[in-house]
């Protein structure tokens, strides 16, 4: 079977699952989630087959025949395209999708709208696969928006919680800002392309041949990147991502760690030619990525919410990837994608592990947590693997992908690699903090019992194995080789340095953040501590600086830096409007209203009157026609 050529089956399977589940509705809540999971599993296996075949035969396949509609002479075509990048992404999306669904079988077991949840996940998987397989930018944009919609639906899944509602709206609006940029970019590109084609292959050729003028390319690249910023949570459009943690944890793992946020990176990678053609754009990408990476890491350091730590970590890691992409070499592309791959794996693992903790302990404030190790030993192990992988410890996948990043960044310049090393150190620190606070020490919650939960355990195990196994050097190298030529080579000193940085970070954090061993009875008498000291600082002044970077601060910045001035400007304009323009418009308006009122007299809503009017109209028309003829 030619799996590559029938890759369209993957989104179709998910779509089928979505349709069936949503149509059956809550009636089938006993078995539709399981069915949906099985379909996702089949899709994942299919995607793996596609990937393996693509890898072995190095074949790429494009089919874009189906003409959806024609606007003037411009055809809007649908189709799909399989090549190494997309095959790889397809595997990630479907794999994690399937695992998350399996996980959610248990996590969402008692939810009233379980089937809806699974339907949404299926729709999301479908859209994401559609996005990945898109052969042209228009189709990509359509799925891009669908993905955004699914994200909105899933963040706001528990819409009875005000915070969830708020977060969903925020995520939707902020990503929409990015999307507007992307759309404008598409318009510009459409205008600039010689044959108005938005097919990626045509864009590739056009940019390679230099058909498009330099400044247009820069503009397009920046606008595309703006879209990617929105989706991938780059500063300053990142604030929605931590808030999106109000959604169910499996969703955080699937959408806000592994797949959707990676769409931005994917978009940049897919249109990398455009970026390569513009050094300005590359520089901006690198700067924004670096800033995001640092800010995200610092912010993660001071969060109390376990999921928010992971969310900021995601922001930070995505920033790293963007920064790497900003280096503008083929190796950079490969390195960024490899990191995307490994990150998807271990970040999903971390989220799922965190979800398991939350599901068991019903608490996600790390200051209130502790000693979970005793309850969930296996989960602790999985989290540790994920954390170490994220930090970049030696045998784990994160290490290898980070090494690739460092190598690329080193070629870009010392400043980049230094930043990256700082980020690496910070990463090690916040992950250590989170781990120590959550898993070590004394368990404070009473009556916590962990049940053996196979649907939750299997994805954790699978992802943990993935987080270790992807890093297996021969395999990792071959992965890189599949993605493209020029897998970067890291100098030994850099390896050593980076490892040192990580170890140092862990050590510092372990020193500062001691596991809390507290007698439960004394804690119990002081439940209000949380209120007295609302923010638990990482360490004295450093943390105070770091706290500037939290979401609240960014909201403040938005409010004072953007909203307030804009409001002031608006107020001024309003004054102008009230005095000068109003005088002019009032008259016109009054006239219009008067005419409207007069006309609305005729609009009585009664058959008879309309009929009489029509009749008179026909009579007049007849008279006119006859008179013309005579």
């Amino acid at each position, binding site marked *: 079977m030619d799996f590559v050529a029938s890759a369209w089956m993957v989104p179709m399977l998910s779509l089928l699952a979505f349709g069936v589940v949503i149509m059956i509705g809550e009636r089938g809540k006993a078995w539709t989630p399981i069915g949906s999971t099985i379909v996702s599993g089949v899709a994942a296996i299919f995607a793996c087959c596609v990937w393996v075949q693509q890898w072995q035969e190095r074949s790429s396949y494009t089919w874009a025949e189906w003409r959806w509609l024609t606007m003037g002479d411009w055809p809007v075509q649908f189709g799909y395209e399989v090549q190494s990048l997309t095959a790889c992404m397809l595997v990630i999306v479907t794999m994690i999708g399937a695992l998350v669904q399996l996980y959610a079988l248990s996590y969402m077991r008692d939810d009233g709208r379980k089937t809806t949840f699974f339907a949404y996940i299926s729709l999301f998987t479908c859209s994401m696969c559609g996005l990945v397989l898109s052969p042209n930018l228009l189709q990509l944009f359509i799925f891009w928006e669908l993905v955004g919609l699914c994200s909105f639906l899933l963040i706001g899944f528990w819409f009875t919680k005000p915070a969830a509602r708020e977060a969903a709206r925020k995520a939707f609006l902020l990503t929409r800002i990015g999307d507007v940029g992307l759309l404008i970019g598409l318009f510009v590109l459409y205008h600039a392309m010689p044959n108005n084609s938005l097919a990626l292959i045509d864009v590739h050729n056009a940019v390679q041949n230099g058909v498009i003028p330099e400044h247009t390319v820069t503009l397009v690249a920046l606008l595309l990147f703006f879209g990617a910023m929105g989706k991938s949570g780059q500063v300053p459009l990142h604030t929605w991502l931590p808030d999106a943690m109000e959604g169910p944890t499996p969703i955080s793992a699937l959408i806000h760690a592994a797949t959707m946020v990676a769409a931005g990176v994917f978009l940049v990678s897919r249109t990398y030619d455009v970026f390569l053609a513009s050094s300005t754009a590359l520089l901006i990408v690198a700067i924004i990525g670096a800033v995001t990476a640092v800010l995200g890491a610092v912010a993660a350091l001071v969060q109390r919410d376990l999921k928010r730590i992971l969310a900021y970590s995601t922001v930070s890691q995505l920033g790293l990837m963007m920064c790497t992409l900003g280096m503008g070499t083929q190796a950079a592309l490969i390195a960024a994608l490899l990191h995307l791959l490994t990150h998807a794996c271990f970040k999903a693992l971390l989220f799922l592990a965190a979800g398991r903790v939350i599901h068991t302990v019903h608490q996600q404030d790390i200051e209130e947590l502790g000693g979970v190790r005793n309850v969930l030993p296996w989960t602790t192990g999985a989290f540790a693997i994920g954390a170490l992988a994220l930090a970049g410890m030696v045998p784990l996948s994160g290490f290898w992908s980070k090494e690739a990043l460092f190598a690329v960044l080193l070629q870009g310049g010392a400043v980049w690699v230094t930043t990256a090393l700082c980020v690496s150190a910070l990463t090690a620190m916040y992950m250590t903090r989170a781990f120590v606070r959550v898993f070590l020490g004394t368990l404070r919650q009473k009556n916590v019992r962990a049940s053996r939960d196979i649907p939750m355990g299997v994805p954790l195990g699978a992802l943990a194995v993935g987080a270790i196994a992807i890093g297996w050097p021969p395999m990792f190298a071959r992965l890189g080789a599949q993605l493209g030529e020029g897998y970067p080579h890291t100098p030994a000193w850099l390896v050593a340095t980076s490892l040192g940085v990580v170890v140092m970070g862990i050590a510092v954090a372990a020193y500062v953040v001691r596991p809390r061993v507290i007698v439960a009875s004394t804690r119990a008498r002081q439940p209000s501590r949380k209120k007295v000291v609302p923010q638990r600082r990482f360490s004295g002044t450093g943390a105070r600086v770091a706290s500037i970077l939290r979401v609240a601060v960014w909201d403040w910045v938005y409010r004072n830096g953007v909203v307030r001035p804009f409001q002031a400007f608006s107020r001024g304009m309003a004054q102008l409007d009230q005095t000068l323009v109003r005088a002019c418009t009032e008259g016109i308006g009054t006239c219009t209203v008067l005419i409207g009122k007069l006309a*609305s007299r005729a*609009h*009585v*809503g*009664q*058959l*008879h009157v309309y*009929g*009489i009017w029509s*009749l008179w109209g026909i009579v007049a028309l007849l008279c006119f026609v006859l008179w013309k003829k005579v």
Partner: protein
Amino acid sequence: MTQTMTAYVLLAALLFVLGLYGVLTRREPIVVLLCVEVMLQAVALNVLAFAKYGGFEDVTGHVFVLFILAVSAAEVAVGVAVFLALVRQRGVDDVVKLDTLHAERQEE
């Protein structure tokens, strides 16, 4: 023979206008419905008159009238059902009161 044709056609026109007048002035929904029927009948008469005196060789006109009859039967079925539903649910038996399209009424 021309005159025969004219007579039929003029009768049809008269009926059509009478039906039209009824539609525009009568207020009972059922009567309005029936006025539309009168108009349809006028059309049918017209078509048949042409079928006979129009110099056609086949009976296409008859087929058309059959279609008119079918459509008007459907119209009556749905119309009467709508009428009953109106009377039942809103107590409306007057076309003039069916003015939910009116801007001011809509807010009520």
